[in-house]
Every structure is written in C-alpha cells, then in structure tokens.
C-alpha cells in the first residue's frame, strides 16, 4: 500500500514536484558518476601496478629458472623500459605476460607504441637499437597503452646478464635470478596507489555530503505533505517507509543514469596522462562487484539521509507544519574538530598510509560537522549587525537553518580543504637541464674508461655524429655540438647502444625525467581532484539554491506580492551563500594547509599558491554562477499572483 501511495505522490507531484524529483535525480547522477570515478581511479592504479609487476623481479630462494634485468633507455623526451631476459641452462621458464613464449637469445619484442615509433623515426635514431623485432608485446605486459617497452632475449652468461649495474631503482634493476616472472608491484607503483587512495578519500567525502544534500532535497519538497500525512494519522513507520521509498526510487534512477554517464565519459577520462601515458579504458571500468556496490550504496545512503531529514516530522507532526525554531547546534561539533586537529600531527607521524588516509577522512568529516555550527554563528553576527533588509534576511536565514546554508557552501569549503592540503603539498620544481649543448654520459666498467672512450669516438664517427668524447673519472662524456638537436642526440644514443653492457647513455635531462614525471603526475592528480571537487561544489550549490527557492516559494511569492523588489530577495539569497562561503572557504583552506604540514618536504611553492588562489576564485565564481542559475526560477515562482501552499 505504501509503495502504491508513494508512487502516486511522486507521479502526482505536479510540475514543481517533478522538477524537484529531476533535480534530485540529476544530483544523484552527478554524485554517482564522480564516485565511480573516485573508486575506478583506485582500481585503475591497482591494475597498472599488477600489470607492471613482472618487471620488478623477486629473487628466487630456490628453483631459479631465469635471469631478469631492466634498465631505462631514452628516445626524444620519453623513457623506454628495456627488460633483458635469459633462461638458465636446461630450464624452460614460463613466458612473461604479453609474450607467447620466453624470448630466445637475440630475440627482441617491442611494445606497440615503441614499434610504431621505431617505424616513424629514421632507423639510426631508434630502430637500430632494437634490430629485427620478433613481435609485439600484448597489453598484459604494459602499464599503459603508450608505454615504450622492449624485451630482449639473452644468453644467461651474456655480459648484459652478468655485468654489475647500478642498484638505483631509477636506473633499472640489476640482474636477478628468478623462479618465475610473476614479480611484485614496484615501489613507485605502490606510491601511486597510496596517493590515489588519498585522492579518492578527498573526492569521496564531498560526494557523500552531496548525496546527502540530494536526499534532503526530496524531503524538503515533501515535508509539508508528509507532516500532513502524520496529522491524519499515518504511523511514523508509514511516513518513513514512503519517504525512503520515494528517495530510493529517484536515487536508483539517478545512480543508473550516473553509471551510464560515467561509462560514456571513460574514453575521455582514459586520455588523462599519468605515469607517462593514457589509460587502458578497461582499467577505468570498475569490476561488477564494485559497480553493484556503488549502485546499492548510493540509493541506500540517499534513503538513510532522507530518514535523518525526516526525524523532525516523525517526532512531531507539527514540527514542520508550524516551522518551529530548530534546536541550536551544539558546540561539541567544534570541539570534535579541534580534538582531531590536535591529534592529527601525531596520527600522521611514522604510521601507515591507511591510518593517514583515515585521519584525513576524520579531519574532513569534522570540518563538515563543525560547518553548520560556524554558519549559525556567522548568521547571528550577520543578523546582529545588519543594516539592510537583504543582510537581515540572510543573517536570520542562516540562524534559522544553518545546515541548509552549510549544504550550499560545504562543497566549496571542503574543496578549500583539498586545495589547502594539496596546494602546499606540491613538491618544488625539479631542476631541468642546465642548458648548453647536450652531453651523453655513460659509466664505464672500472678501469676501462679510456677503452670505452676510444670505442665511443669510433662509433660516433661512423654514425656521422660530431662529438667531443672524454673521460671524467669512470664516466665517459660525449659532448655534442651546440647545434645538436634531439635527432642528433638520438643518433648518438643509438650509436652508443651496447657500448657498456647493461648501461644506457643518458643526458642530464634524462636523469631528471622521473622527477619531472612525478611532479607532472602530482599536478595532474591535484587538478583532477580539484576539478571533481569543484564540479561537486558547483552542482551542489546550484541544486541547493534551486531547492531553496522551491522550498520557500510561498514566502518569496508573498514578499514580492507585497512589493519587495526581486533584487532584495536576490541580494539576500546571495549574501546567504557568500557570507558563510567567505568565512568557511577560508577556514577550510587553513585547516587543509594545517593537515598538509606534516607531509611537506620543502616550503610553499609558487605553483601551490597559484593553484590555491585559482581554487578560491573558481569556487566563488562557480557558486555565484550556480546561484544565478536559480534566478529565473525565483522570478518564475514569485510571478505567481496567488501563491498558495501545496
């Protein structure tokens, strides 16, 4: 019976009722799509880490079947991962992922992107380094589709598999005897996964707040009607049942729409470059279990939030009908935030990343908990000092319903927290190449520098590359002419390939490439998190502003009818948002920056400060813009000459 009545109430809600349902549906769809993105980002990094694991060998304790080593080569401004594999005598190892068989000595297999690049560039710049490739590596061997990887088969006693190599992981992996090529996710892959977990937490919390706001939107539209139902004798259970059912029906439709929107956006999202390349689209699709979990969790959350919003109706049917003063917020909300901030540095000192993520989530939730209390305080100050009707209305409205005002600004305030946290966290810019003519350097085996210099001169001369080659201790330095471009550098690299087994000639820029890449990835990550937070914040404030107009249409209509200019109502609405936004946005940035301090390596950098400033400007502009979108709605609802209650 409840379901039937609920469905009739939903269908018969009229134009405005349906508009509210559409707003809720839209809000839930946006929240679901972004939540799926936050979750998918995690699983995508996990998938990358697992696919790249075979290149991070685990030394065999017994039963070794092969030797594996890796190093980095470079072409243009990109890194090539070169994996050397050799079967131990008499052993037939399982092939690595993406290869049909274990590579025989002398065989070369290239990733599709490297094979294509080798075809595009002149042979003496790249292809001659990897002659006669036997085939192309499958996707299972690659971290991302643009990755440049070469697998080279060797004899177990070849110099490449026996010569000493640097044990700096940035330069590759020294030869290791392995029992299988399963490997384990590398340190950098683990670091990316942890960062993506932190990013997911930062994105997910505003989404949960947004989901809750969407649910309240349903309740706000219905509270008068449900209070009326209570007045005619509906039991609390029936009222709760009807509300939850309605909220869940709308939320489920929104969640499905959001999942569809996310699926459509995947090709676009797959184009975001991380770790030097785009994504396999399949990595960004969460598994069926995760998808089902989100599709169940979102409507459930919306239903629970709806129940929380209905508490007052259920407790007292007159509560909503008479619009009594809501109970004042408790100061304990602020105490909770202060307590978390006090212990935050201790929580994050030398503990695991999961505890840091939990502490961050806790701080985030406490900002959300303290928000309404602070908004109420701001409201009392604004109302107390107001001289104009608009500010008086805004101040009293903030005091009357600080939770609703907080919902409008919470998105940007929480984004401020993210920006404050990430803005200061950005590492300082790495030193790029110092300029001047390019130099290729390669470390010679001990005592063989002169011999390597002679060979290098010979090879470069044969390749037609003009360079001055000289030893600096054990390092052989080939200084190219000042007019040498990237093609000349790659010709020199190709000529010097294999000069010292297991080592690659590199420029200074090559050596700093990983630092630059990590910095670029942190920036891209920051921009992605901020973009998601802003989308949530702006959608949230737009939807809240519209629902606020719908909720208060009778009062607005009567005020306008009695001659109150639309501009006064508009100014009041704007102040209602901007005053708490200015205070809360600023406060949240400071809290975010405070939480970032334990993680800071260097000082505050300019990029971080600019990101932070842009965040504040974009947040304010977005919220004002989203609020302005509800002005036609305000005009339309107040144009009704005879506003009547529902």
């Amino acid at each position, binding site marked *: 019976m409840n379901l039937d009545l609920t469905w009739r109430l939903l269908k018969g809600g009229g134009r405005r009722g349906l508009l509210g349902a559409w707003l809720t549906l839209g809000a839930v769809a946006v929240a679901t799509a972004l939540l799926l993105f936050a979750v998918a980002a995690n699983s995508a990094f996990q998938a990358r880490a697992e696919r790249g694991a075979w290149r991070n060998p685990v030394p065999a304790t017994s039963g070794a079947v092969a030797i594996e080593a890796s190093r980095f080569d470079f072409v243009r401004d990109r890194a090539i991962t070169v994996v050397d594999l050799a079967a131990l005598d008499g052993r037939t190892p399982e092939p690595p992922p993406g290869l049909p068989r274990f590579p025989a000595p002398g065989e070369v297999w290239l990733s599709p992107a490297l094979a294509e690049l080798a075809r595009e560039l002149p042979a003496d710049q790249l292809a001659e380094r990897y002659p006669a490739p036997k085939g192309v590596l499958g996707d299972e061997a690659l971290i991302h589709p643009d990755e440049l990887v070469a697998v080279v088969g060797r004899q177990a006693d070849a110099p490449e598999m026996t010569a000493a190599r640097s044990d700096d992981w940035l330069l590759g992996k020294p030869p290791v005897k392995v029992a299988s090529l399963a490997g384990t996710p590398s340190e950098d892959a683990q670091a990316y996964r942890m960062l993506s977990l932190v990013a997911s937490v930062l994105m997910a919390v505003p989404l949960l707040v947004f989901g809750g706001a969407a649910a309240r939107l349903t309740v706000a539209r219905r509270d008068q009607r449900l209070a009326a139902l209570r007045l005619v004798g509906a039991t609390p259970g029936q009222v709760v049942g009807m509300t939850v059912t309605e909220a869940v029906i709308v939320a489920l439709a929104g969640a499905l729409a959001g999942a569809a929107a996310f699926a459509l956006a995947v090709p676009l999202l797959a184009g975001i470059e991380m770790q030097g390349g785009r994504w396999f689209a399949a990595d960004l699709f969460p598994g069926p279990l995760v998808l089902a979990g989100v599709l169940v969790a979102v409507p459930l959350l919306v239903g629970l939030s709806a129940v929380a919003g209905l508490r007052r109706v259920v407790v007292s049917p007159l509560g909503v009908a008479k619009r009594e*003063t809501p109970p004042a917020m408790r100061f304990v909300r602020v105490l909770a935030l202060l307590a978390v901030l006090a212990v935050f540095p201790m929580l994050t000192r030398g503990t695991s990343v999961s505890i840091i993520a939990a502490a961050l989530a806790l701080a985030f939730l406490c900002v959300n908990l303290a928000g309404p209390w602070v908004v109420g305080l701001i409201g009392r100050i604004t109302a107390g000092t107001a*001289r104009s009707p608009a500010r*008086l*209305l805004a101040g*009293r409205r903030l005091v009357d319903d600080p939770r609703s005002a907080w919902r409008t600004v919470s998105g940007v305030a929480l984004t401020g927290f993210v920006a404050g946290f990430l803005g200061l966290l950005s590492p300082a810019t790495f030193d790029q190449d110092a300029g001047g003519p390019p130099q290729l350097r390669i470390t010679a085996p001990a005592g063989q520098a002169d011999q390597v210099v002679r060979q290098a001169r010979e090879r470069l001369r044969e390749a037609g590359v003009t360079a001055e080659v000289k030893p600096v201790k054990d390092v052989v330095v080939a200084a190219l002419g000042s007019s040498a471009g990237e093609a000349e550098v790659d010709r020199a690299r190709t000529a010097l390939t294999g000069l010292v087994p297991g080592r690659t000639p590199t420029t200074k820029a090559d050596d700093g490439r990983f630092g630059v890449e990590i910095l670029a990835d942190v920036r891209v990550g920051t921009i992605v998190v901020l973009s998601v937070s802003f989308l949530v914040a702006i959608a949230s404030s737009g939807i809240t502003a519209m629902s606020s107009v719908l909720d208060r249409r*009778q009062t607005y209509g009567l005020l306008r009818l*009695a*001659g109150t*200019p639309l501009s006064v109502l508009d100014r009041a609405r704007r102040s209602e948002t901007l005053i708490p936004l200015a205070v809360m946005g600023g406060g949240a940035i400071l809290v975010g920056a405070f939480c970032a301090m334990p993680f800071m390596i260097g000082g505050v950098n300019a990029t971080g400060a600019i990101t932070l400033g842009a965040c504040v400007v974009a947040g304010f502009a977005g919220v004002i813009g989203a609020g302005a979108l509800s002005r036609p709605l305000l005009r339309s609802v107040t144009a009704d000459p005879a506003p009547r209650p529902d």
Partner: protein
Amino acid sequence: MNDVLVGRALAKRFGQTVALGGVDIAVRAGEAVAIMGPSGSGKSTLLHCLAGIMKPDGGEVHLLGQRIDALGERRRSALRRTRFGFVFQFGQLLPELPAEENVALPLMLGGVPRAQAVRQAREWFGPLGLQSMESRRPGELSGGQAQRVAIARALVSKPAVVFADEPTGALDQQTGQETMRLLVEATKHNGACLIVVTHDPNVAAWCDRTVEVRDGRLLTSGALA
C-alpha cells in the same frame, strides 16, 4: 469625490475563462469594503487587479486620481510597498524573523534605518494586544497572534489601502471575529481604507458595505458610490 481607489470596467481572462467581465468599483477614504462571492467568482482576481499585483486585460485602476494599472512592474511593486498593505490567510510572515523584524521589514525596504524601523514596529504591538511578543518567531505564535503581527506589518508603513485576502480563513470563529475587529479598527484609526475578500458573511459584517461578485461581475449595486 473623495474616492481613494477606483476600478473602472475591469476585465481579465485566463485562457477561455472570464475572471472579470467589466467590473466598476470605488472605495472612499476610511471605508471598509467586503468583496464576497463563491470560489472561482473572480473576487481574488479583482483584489489582485486593484492592488497592482496583476494587470487587467481591460479597464483602469486609479489610486488617489493617478492611474496605476498602466505602470511598469517596478513602479507597481514600489506602489504596493509604500501605498498598500496586505494581510493574507497565512504564510506571509517570514518564519526566520522575530515578530518585530517582520513588522519592521516594509520600513527597512523603504530605507528607514533598522533601529528606527524596529522602534516604530514595536509601537504597534501594544494596541494590537501583542505585548511581549516582539521577539517571538512566527512558529511560536498562535494563528490569531500571527494575524495580528501581519496586521501590524500591513499598517506600519501608513498605507492608503489595506488589502486582506481571507484574513480569518485559518482561524476559529472567535479568534476570527477578534482579528477582524482589530483589523477594521486599526485600519480606520490609521486613516486607511480596507478591502477584504471573504466568503464569510460574519467577516463581511465588520465592513461598511459589501459587494458581491459572481462569474466575474458585481451583483450588488454598491459598486460605485
């Protein structure tokens, strides 16, 4: 010749429905007029046209000799704020403002400083039997008390005309009678005229005369004095 508000040949249609079919009405200074009629008769539409809330399709409205129906929305809005007062069935008070600020709001909208506006607003609480209710919010007032606050708000800016649309519709008989007494007395004491839309003869009885609307036309002869 001391007509304050005059409507001549007022006509209004909503699609195919004729809400007003050429209505003539005049209200003298200090006069209280009741507009009665069944639901859908056009009485609320007549009030909206006279108050400048709605533009009539035909006819004219004059306030103190000045034509107001042809004014733009902005000027009609200013007129409603300064020369007219309104009392509705319910819902006109802002729930988040205390009673005194609800009353002071029209003054503040007119540019009166807040402290002075609140002081002037408080002067209305005693005569209307609202002593010590100044800082209560509408949710904490009874229906009758809330209507008396609405009466104070309608009168605080010293309007020429007070429009009341079913002002006792949400009140019990006794409270309704008391509210009407206060509305009529306070309006006359203030020198304003009163136009009340109602379907209740007991409410209409408080007014000096009654005009009856049926199918968009006046039935009674009291249309023009």
